[in-house]
């Protein structure tokens, strides 16, 4: 029976110290590898007669703006259906040059998943047959799921987000309502409560 320990052992035998950061959050084996090795690792996991990770459950990305040089993480969820075990595999890439080899040669399902990831995070999947936006409009010129794009309208001044636990807790992206107010008040007149005088 395949267990997390065996998978870990097989991986370290093959890739030595290049696979690292083994963790088991909530029982799922999680590890990372250098970005240029992603296809080698996926291929090994796919082809190995013992591991047989031949089903790609999910592919997505996460943005860590404070982690310099490794801002974007591409996360693969793989499933071995015969032994019924799942693993999570991550590669990190710099936001300046987010090139990751495509997994479409191995999994047809990676096609749209990678397009979605590109659409929202701007990860350039090298070798993808049709890397273009999928859910957003084609004319969009930014990658909206990156953390520097705040969700709420940054011109809004009637609501102090910090009072409601929505601002500042993540420590990036949005300035406080007060900062915004200063910027806006250069152009508009406000009464003492901060409401614009029409």
């Amino acid at each position, binding site marked *: 029976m395949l267990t997390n320990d065996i998978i870990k052992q097989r991986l370290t035998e093959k890739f030595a110290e290049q696979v690292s950061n083994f963790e088991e959050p909530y029982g799922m084996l999680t590890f990372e590898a250098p970005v240029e090795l992603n296809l080698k690792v996926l291929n090994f996991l796919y082809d190995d007669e013992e591991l047989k990770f031949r089903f790609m459950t999910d592919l997505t990305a996460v943005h860590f703006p404070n982690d310099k040089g490794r801002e974007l993480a591409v996360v693969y969820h793989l499933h071995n259906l015969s032994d*019924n075990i799942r693993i999570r595999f991550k590669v990190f890439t710099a936001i300046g040059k987010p090139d990751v080899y495509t997994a479409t040669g191995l999994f*047809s399902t990676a096609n*749209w998943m990678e397009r979605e990831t590109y659409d929202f995070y701007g990860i350039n999947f090298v070798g993808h047959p049709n890397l273009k936006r999928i859910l957003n409009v084609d004319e969009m010129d930014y990658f909206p799921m990156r953390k520097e794009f705040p969700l709420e309208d940054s011109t809004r001044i009637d609501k102090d987000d910090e009072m409601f636990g929505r601002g500042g807790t993540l420590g990036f992206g949005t300035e406080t309502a007060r900062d915004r107010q200063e910027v806006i008040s250069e152009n508009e007149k406000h009464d003492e409560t901060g409401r614009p005088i029409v």
Partner: protein
Amino acid sequence: MSEQHIKLPEGSIEKTTTTLNLGPTHPATHGVMQNILELDGERIVSAEQTIGYIHRAFEKLAERRPLAQITTLTDRMNYCSSPINNMGWHLTCEKLLGVKTPKRVDYLRVIIMELARISDHLICNSIVGVDAGAYTGFLYVMQYRELIYEIYEEVCGARLTTNIGRIGGFERNFNDIAFQKLEKFLSEYPKVLKEFENLFQRNRIFMERTMGTGAISAERALNYGFTGPNLRAAGVDYDVRVHTPYSSYEDFQFNIPVGTTGDNYDRWLVREKEMWESLSIIEQAYQKVQEFKGAEAEVYHADVPEYYLPPKEDVYTKMEALIYHFKIVMGETEIPKGEVYQAVEGGNGELGFYLISDGGRTPYRLHFRRPCFVYYQAYEELTKGGMLSDAIMTMSSLNLIAGELDA
């Protein structure tokens, strides 16, 4: 007409194929999605799908919402079986928070989830009938979907976008009317389903329309990430309820129906058989629920004061309850750090929630693994070389839900 009025695009005289836009708003697509088909006569040479017409940025929205407010987002993904999405989200939160739900809650959840599965499959199968020209079955079974919706209504007050349940259980106990309606459903529905089956299953016209069209092999289906009934129709017995049981599914006896060819007819059959299995699961769950006596029969949520709203009368009289009430409503509860993936067997397959929390009040990242999105990319392969009218049926037998495609 003089020559200057006719301006044909260059190369269009020599072109032997026709380009046809199927969608975005076409009655046969049952949702907002576009297919740009290249047709040679009535045969499909190539198909290009365009999606994203109802993209609502749920993943971005979720990054600014406390856990309890994300449930309403999940409603709007697969709106034919929103209770399963809701439960999947609650299970994800419970896994992250380490909440253990009481058995009675699990069984009640199973009842609701299987009802949702029936209503989902019912719609899909009857719509396949509609696309083949058989409207009767669709209208006939609507009555029983209505009954399922009435049960939801008794439990949570809503019908389509249910927002059913809470982290840790349900917002209130099931009332007697809910159980009466469930009993009515259990006693009447088998007859109706049998009759519905008789309309289609051995119907020569229906069989000839569906057999051999939109087929996919097991190997290709796996490579395309198919899950749920569509994968099982191709002959792979993968079901999340059995492989990674959640909500006490391990306590139930049921079969996983599988097909062989993965064509439209097999998909239809697999869904049909799954409805029978769901019925049997509901019967077992209802029996188990009735076995709880005394105080146990009143249990409908786990004890998670930080995430489960206290009773309203306590909020007025007890300080602690007031604080928790305020913190939950305003979303001021800090979520523990963690990274979790939880999957449930949705109406269309494995519905996964990948949640990363950095210890803030909202998820750091939430990704929905939507089965529809994953398998719709195989549409070209499924329809290539086939007839246009078969492509329409393939679309409905895949059970494409635009809400789940786009999220």
